[in-house]
């Protein structure tokens, strides 16, 4: 069930995009900013996932299913609380495993002590913090804790953890109810790989250009799938590649003009060669 087993969703796709493996994901694309983005991100987990997390060396980032993680949030039951002078240890159990959450006491803050003193054993809580390890034992360095007041949140958290797990594996869902997006999905899931749907780019394009009309998006996808060349790509090649009978030359020219106005493409050696502005 790893992302490498199923080609359906563009296995190269998820991986290539996330690890910035594609030549097109450098610079302007989201790939370039990943490092800080991930370390500042917050992802819901089950405790079982956290106990399976690994790091290459003690200073390296944690990885779950070979994907880097940042801050974590879990919903679990407090099994026991050990209060010490400088820190408190909360043993948490969410049904999938147990993990300790450590909180360093900030005696200067009344607010803080009030928040942490309202936590009782046996109740469900949401804990947010970062994953650490001491020796071989993992724990959460907790920055925030609160009681769960609505039991639905326990189930929401489980479903959210599943959802995020699938998004990390397959990329974000395409916008439901919009025709073009469904078409792209169908194309990807049938495995009917055409020359311009280079798999490693599909999720990125989906994401970045989701707001564009279908024809413009097809053009962008085609241009991204082409090897970079200084002279750009001739309009006739573009027209040929995305020739669905309904797309006549005028429409393609209009779409290209529109993309140029928005700064997505520019003309190169003459007015009929186009290149991507990344």
């Amino acid at each position, binding site marked *: 069930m790893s992302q490498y087993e199923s080609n359906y969703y563009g296995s190269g796709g998820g991986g290539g995009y996330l690890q910035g493996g594609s030549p097109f994901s450098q610079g302007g694309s989201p790939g370039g900013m990943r490092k800080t983005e991930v370390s500042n991100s917050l992802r819901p987990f*089950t405790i079982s996932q956290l106990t399976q997390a690994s790091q290459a060396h003690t200073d390296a980032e944690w990885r779950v299913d070979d994907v880097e993680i940042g801050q974590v949030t879990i919903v679990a039951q407090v099994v026991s609380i050990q209060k010490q002078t400088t820190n408190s240890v909360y043993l948490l*159990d969410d*049904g*999938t495993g147990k993990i300790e959450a450590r909180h360093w006491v900030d005696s200067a803050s009344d607010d803080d002590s009030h928040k942490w003193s309202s936590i009782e054993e046996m109740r469900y809580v949401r804990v947010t913090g970062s994953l650490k390890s001491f020796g071989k034992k993992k724990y959460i360095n907790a920055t925030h804790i609160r009681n769960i007041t609505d*039991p639905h949140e326990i*189930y929401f958290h*489980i479903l959210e953890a599943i959802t995020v*797990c699938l998004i990390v594996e397959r990329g974000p869902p395409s916008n439901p109810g919009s025709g073009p997006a469904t078409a792209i999905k169908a194309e990807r899931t049938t495995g009917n790989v055409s020359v311009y749907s280079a798999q490693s780019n599909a999720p990125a394009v989906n994401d970045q250009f989701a707001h564009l009309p279908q024809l413009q998006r097809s053009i962008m996808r085609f241009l991204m799938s082409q090897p970079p060349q200084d002279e750009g790509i001739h309009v006739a090649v573009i027209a040929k590649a995305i020739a669905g009978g309904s797309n006549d030359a005028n429409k393609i020219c209009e779409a290209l003009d529109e993309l140029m106005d928005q700064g997505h493409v520019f003309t190169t050696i003459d007015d009929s060669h186009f290149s991507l502005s990344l």
Partner: protein
Amino acid sequence: MADEDREHTPRVNSARLADFIGKTIRLPCKVLKVDGERLTVEAADGGQVAVNATPNADVSDTFIEVIGKVNSPSSIQMLASISMGSDLDMKLVNDTIELIHDRRFYNRMF
């Protein structure tokens, strides 16, 4: 990871109790009847389960989560219980339980 290697209390409905005989589980349920320490509860899938409660267990809420050991496909020995209030969407709970046990996620996340 093998089940025996970890402290693992999966959430279940009544239909899945048979797969966990002798194991410890979590059963989100609605309290139907309290007779001393013998409870009759309705699991998320609508099936009735007999629960041997611990003395002084707080079962005053309409919905509780029983942590217990499975004796038979229709009875469990309570180890602890957690109050879940008076409003809980049991269809949502059951759908979530079925996803937890889906083989795409079970060994990997739960």
